[in-house]
């Protein structure tokens, strides 16, 4: 359980984290989302006591992390996979960490096995690929058999196999009853992993809800329909009160529908005798909802002429 209350961090005149309050509960994967520069890493550093808050508090199991008598058993964190001394072997690196908390040597071998690095345990980590470093960082986080795991952008730079591995790994850790807190700047990543999301932008809380709520509260989920009779279906949808648009980048005969559920569209098509070949929620919708939500809070916009306007969809912020 991690609890932040009014957590604020200023660096000079820049406010990196601005009055954040949230609770991260055990047994689920909580995604921590925000554009680059939103304050995700700073928040994690504040949780670990690496940075001191300018205002507010954050506790881990009821007390600040630096006061924990068994810090490695309480929290395992991977903030930056590159942050290891490259001259030390994987085993040596983990052994250094293990000693501080009185963790036995066999546990080091055990976690190396869990992340699949046993074969290179004695190799110096400067020769490791990014994927291997991520695994080493995860092994370090696991050493103390922690109740809480924090990963900062764990899939950055990983190949699809590595991404799948981390995704499943985080789910199984949560299933064991642990608290898993993982940051990402990609909504699509969280869609497949997280049960709960905390979204921040410019250091402020934008949303704190389940993935399902996030989708439901976002600005109307789009449904993608493919039909050989798009005109007939579009008329039917318009008559039923929905809005539809032809998908320009899709195949001919594809419509993107908002304002109606999948069931309603299917029933409409049946009632009007329109054949439907494909009917599904638009894969882009979650990412789009996230971008709309955070558009007003992106730290560094690309200089596009048509800047997205933030959607007002009635979420607290």
């Amino acid at each position, binding site marked *: 359980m991690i609890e932040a209350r009014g957590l604020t961090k200023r660096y000079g005149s820049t406010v990196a984290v601005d009055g954040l309050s949230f609770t991260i509960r055990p047994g689920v994967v909580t995604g921590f989302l925000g554009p680059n520069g939103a304050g995700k890493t700073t928040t994690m550093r504040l949780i670990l006591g690496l940075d001191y808050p300018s205002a507010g508090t954050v506790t881990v199991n009821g007390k600040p992390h630096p*006061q924990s008598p068994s810090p490695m058993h309480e929290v395992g964190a991977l903030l930056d996979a590159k942050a290891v001394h490259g001259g030390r*072997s994987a085993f040596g690196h983990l052994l250094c960490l293990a*000693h501080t908390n*009185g963790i036995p040597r066999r546990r080091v071998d055990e976690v190396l096995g869990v992340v699949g690095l046993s074969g290179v345990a004695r190799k110096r980590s400067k020769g490791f690929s990014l994927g291997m470093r991520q695994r080493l960082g995860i092994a370090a986080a696991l050493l103390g058999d922690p109740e809480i795991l924090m990963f900062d952008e764990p899939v950055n730079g990983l190949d699809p196999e590595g991404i799948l*591995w981390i995704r499943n790994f985080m789910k199984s850790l949560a299933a064991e009853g642990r608290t898993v807190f993982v940051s990402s700047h990609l909504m699509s990543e969280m869609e497949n992993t997280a049960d709960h999301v905390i979204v921040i932008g410019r250091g402020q809380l934008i949303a704190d809800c389940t993935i399902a709520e996030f989708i439901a509260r976002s600005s109307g989920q789009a449904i993608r329909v493919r039909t050989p009779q798009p005109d007939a279906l579009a008329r039917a949808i318009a008559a039923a009160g929905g809005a539809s648009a032809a998908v320009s980048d899709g195949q001919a005969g594809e419509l993107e529908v908002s304002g109606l559920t999948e069931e309603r569209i299917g029933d409409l098509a049946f009632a009007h005798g329109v054949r439907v070949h494909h009917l599904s929620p638009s894969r882009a919708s979650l990412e789009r909802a996230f971008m709309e939500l955070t558009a007003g809070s992106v730290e560094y916009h690309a200089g596009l002429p048509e800047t997205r306007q933030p959607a007002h969809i009635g979420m607290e912020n």
Partner: protein
Amino acid sequence: MAAATASPCLPRTVPAGGYRASAAGTVRSEFTKIRSVRSTYWTLFLLVAAGVAWSIAYCVGEVSRWPAMSAQDKVGFDPAQSSIVGVALLGQLVIVVLGTLSITSEYSTGMIRTSLTVMPRRGVFYGAKAGVLAAVALVVAFLASFASFFIGQALLASTHVSATLSQPNVLRAVIGSALYVVLCGLFAFGLGAILRSTAGAMTAAYGFLFLVPQLAKALPSSWYADVDRWLPGGDVVNAITNTQSVNASQHLFSAWGEFAVFGAYTLAVLVAGALLIRRRDA
């Protein structure tokens, strides 16, 4: 890859008492850190090798010059200093690298964030690190110092003026040289904690140890005589390694007095580093 398909479930292995962070464990951790990187072995080897090499080169040179030396020079000849001054002079160059890297490599690699996550009591972390550095430096510096002394004296035997440890000031010079090297390592360590940059801390350490004493020589001589005894580097080595009272510099404190001056600087830098590491964001 096998790992991708292996069961990711993590065995729960925590003992009933749970794992606990401790000062003893952190000392163990820091000892493992220092002995698990190659640069430690290179610098420590260099420390001994440089001291011994100086002793051999210098003492062989003295032996060859001995027959032609004036009687006055022979009176002032300091066989103990000849054999061990290299340990202090060259040893300080080497130990500054080890002392600096011991703390700045944590910052340059980012390891500091992991170190302070697993041992969030920063004072314990800092103390363990400094303590392990001091202990390792002490053992190796004593080895360098005594080895240089005995090798040098063996080479000087033909002059019949070679020193023994029982002669006045000799043991002090041999031990003092080793302790001076340890202090230099801690001095650099403290600067590393303050500056958090390898290049910055090494430059500062060498600046204090070598440049400041040189710059002080530009002062008017009456001032210099008052200032010199208070400077961290330079003449401290001279005061510690000199065993012949006829050679003693009048404007310096005694050997242990000069050692205490440098010790005070080292302590000040170490305390400043400790305060900063506790107060600053990691």
